[in-house]
């Protein structure tokens, strides 16, 4: 085992915990616990915003999705950043002027209504848990290559550390931890991007000489009397299988099993070697025909087959500038090998074959690999739904809203947001380079793309890998801490103190918050283990959809529509939660997670926003108009 990365990792986590203890002394009161006493400098708060926002989804998930789906992953970067426009121009200052600590308080600012307190606190809890799941999944994937621990231990470790931070310190510590982590994440991401450009592009990436390039076999074949025959007689065809439009061929050579992808073209039939995992009925895992072991892992994949029409050594580019790098990868005559998982059952074995797809650079550098913008009307609707939820979700996230209260004035909140947009926007530009860099550097784990960015860093050496993994781990720690603070605030303050009217003392409120933090943390740990392997950006996209559906209509209408009533807000929050979560639970992606066929899901949409957000708005308007005689609100 390489102890250097572990040492860096432990030093970083130790530093985070040390900072928490140090700042804990400032969190004696409830105000200090929840909102850092309202005295954080706007510049620090802006970078802390970035630290909060650049979660596992941004660093691990977006880079991972770009590494396997190209520009489609970058859509998340665009949408996540655009969401700040809603936060900046529409929500930031009016919310700050309300001067409340939690989402529920802000909504309840004028009504003092039990229904709002209950609905908003439940909404905060639901959104926080949805957002916590991908963070925990990210934590699990991080520790596997770093510490050699299984996924579930990584999830438990993050959960345990964060519960300790929140239960001992509260928001004050997380603000400074987020500031440090946000700054370091942007700086070291830039280091990776500069390294990618300096190394340039090649058709035989070998991770700086550390991992020899594996040249996948390509065979020619032909149909003879309806049977497939390989030109090289050493290969014997055992069978063929077509799964979801992918034609696979099972071959044998020297008693070793192989799977190839069959591609029919004008010149005949070509067979392309795949990696595969076979799990027997006894649970034994075979990788590429041999038992899984440290010496026989699933190989990292992704490489360029042709660079701007050239292949072999003459295709090597040498160092490339930032625009040049994107232009060469996006060249119509650049060809990229990416792996797509095909799952089926074969002779009692659960098979996963990672079949290669050869995609032109022009296709990779525009939407279409994951979100079928040229597909059916339903697929187009799904794309619109995603973009809508990303745009409207940011301002409705409970752990982002709570940061508005940690600066002294509305103007400081505005400046914080500008600093955040600058830092986050710059980072999101870098995600395109990191994702594409991973895609062409043979560093993508075909079974779980979430680790693409850290594994890209490892191709530049163990030190960069150690540092970036430690920062990514701290990213997860910080984001999870912010979310748990928001969730515990919802339980202790909104539910116990306000809704149930327990009239807790200041000290007991903090104690209740800490107990709630432990409970929410445990729930997040369980879900983090269950959702292993799902792309974390996709999961965060769902959290955005729930937040945009449940919270945003209420916030916007409360701020800008004088006829808003408390009944309208309660109905909107409830309808937003139920409709968005309901669509997600019945969607093709969750159906697949349940072990069922995607095509059998009752609702064919993956992203609920296109229905649930307008429905929540409409509910608020209709119910408010129906109950308008009873009360109204005027924020100004």
């Amino acid at each position, binding site marked *: 085992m390489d102890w250097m990365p572990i040492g860096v990792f432990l030093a970083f986590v130790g530093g985070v915990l040390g900072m928490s203890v140090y700042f804990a002394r400032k969190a004696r009161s*409830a105000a200090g616990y929840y909102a850092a006493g309202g005295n954080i400098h706007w510049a620090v708060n802006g970078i802390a915003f970035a630290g909060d926002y650049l979660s596992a989804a941004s660093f691990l998930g977006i880079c991972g999705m770009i590494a396997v789906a190209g520009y489609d992953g970058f859509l998340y*970067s665009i949408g996540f950043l*655009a969401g700040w426009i809603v936060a900046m121009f529409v929500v930031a*200052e009016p919310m700050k002027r309300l*001067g409340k600590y939690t989402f529920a308080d802000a909504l309840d600012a004028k009504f003092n209504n039990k229904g709002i307190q209950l609905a908003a606190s439940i909404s905060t809890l639901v959104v926080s848990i949805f957002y916590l799941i991908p963070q925990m999944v990210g934590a699990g994937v991080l520790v596997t290559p770093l510490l050699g621990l299984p996924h579930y231990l990584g999830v438990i470790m993050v959960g345990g550390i964060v519960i300790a931070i929140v239960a001992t310190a509260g928001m004050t510590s997380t603000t400074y931890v987020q500031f440090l982590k946000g700054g370091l994440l942007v700086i070291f991401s830039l280091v990776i991007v500069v390294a990618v450009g300096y190394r340039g592009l090649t058709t035989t990436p070998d991770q700086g000489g550390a991992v020899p390039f594996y040249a996948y076999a390509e065979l020619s074949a032909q149909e003879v009397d309806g049977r497939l025959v390989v030109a090289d007689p050493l290969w014997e065809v055992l069978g063929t299988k077509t799964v979801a439009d992918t034609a696979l061929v099972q071959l044998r050579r020297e008693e070793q099993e192989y799977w190839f992808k069959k591609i029919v073209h004008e010149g005949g039939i070509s067979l392309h070697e795949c990696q595969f995992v076979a799990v027997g009925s006894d649970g034994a895992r075979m990788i590429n025909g041999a038992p899984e072991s440290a010496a026989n892992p699933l190989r990292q994949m992704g490489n360029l087959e042709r660079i701007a029409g050239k292949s072999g050594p003459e295709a090597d580019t040498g160092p490339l500038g930032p625009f040049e790098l994107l232009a060469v990868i*996006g060249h119509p005559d650049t060809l990229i090998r990416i792996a797509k998982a095909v799952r089926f059952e074969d002779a009692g074995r659960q098979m996963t074959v990672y079949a290669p797809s050869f995609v032109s650079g022009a296709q990779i550098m525009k939407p279409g690999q994951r979100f079928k913008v040229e597909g059916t009307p339903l697929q187009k609707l799904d794309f619109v739904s995603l973009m809508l939820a990303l745009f409207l979700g940011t301002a409705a996230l409970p752990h982002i809203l709570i940061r508005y209260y940690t600066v002294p004035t509305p103007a400081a909140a*505005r400046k914080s947001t*500008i600093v955040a947009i600058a830092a986050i926007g710059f980072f999101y530009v870098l995600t395109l380079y990191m994702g594409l860099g991973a895609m062409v550097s043979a560093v993508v784990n075909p079974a779980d793309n979430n680790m693409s960015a850290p594994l890209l860093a490892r191709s530049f050496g163990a030190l960069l890998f150690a540092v970036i993994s430690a920062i990514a781990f701290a990213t997860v720690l910080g984001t999870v801490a912010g979310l748990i603070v928001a969730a515990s605030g919802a339980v202790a303050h909104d539910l116990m103190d306000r809704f149930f009217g327990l009239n807790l003392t200041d000290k007991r409120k903090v104690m209740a918050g800490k107990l709630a933090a432990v409970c929410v943390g445990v729930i997040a740990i369980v879900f983090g283990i269950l959702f292993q392997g799902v792309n974390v950006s996709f999961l965060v996209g769902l959290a955005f959809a729930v937040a945009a559906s449940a919270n945003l209509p209420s916030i916007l209408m409360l701020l800008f529509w004088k006829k808003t009533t408390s009944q309208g807000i309660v109905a909107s929050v409830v309808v937003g939660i139920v409709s968005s979560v309901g669509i997600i639970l019945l969607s093709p992606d969750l159906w697949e997670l349940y072990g069922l066929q995607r095509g059998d899901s009752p609702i064919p949409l993956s992203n609920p926003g296109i229905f649930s957000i307008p429905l929540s708005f409409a509910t608020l308007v209709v119910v408010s108009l129906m109950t308008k005689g009873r009360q109204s609100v005027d924020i100004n």
Partner: protein
Amino acid sequence: MLHEPASKSGPDPAMAYKSRLGAWMFVIYALIYAGFVAVNLLAPATMSSELLWGLNVAVVYGFGLIIFALVLALIYNAFCMREERRLAPGKES
């Protein structure tokens, strides 16, 4: 205690101006963002056309949306600061 503002802020005479300006800037950005979605749906082939420095429309539009968000935010802040100074107590409006 939990129902008090994190820190007190007095009446803001520039509030109406800032709300109006923010709404306009939101509309401008939302239209350009919607344009990005619309081009992808209605003319997807356009996205792969080369536009600038070897980069295609998809990349330039995507980067542009990110940069434009920051530019709008800076403009918004400058106008808000000017109005806040103009309407600050002790200054003539």
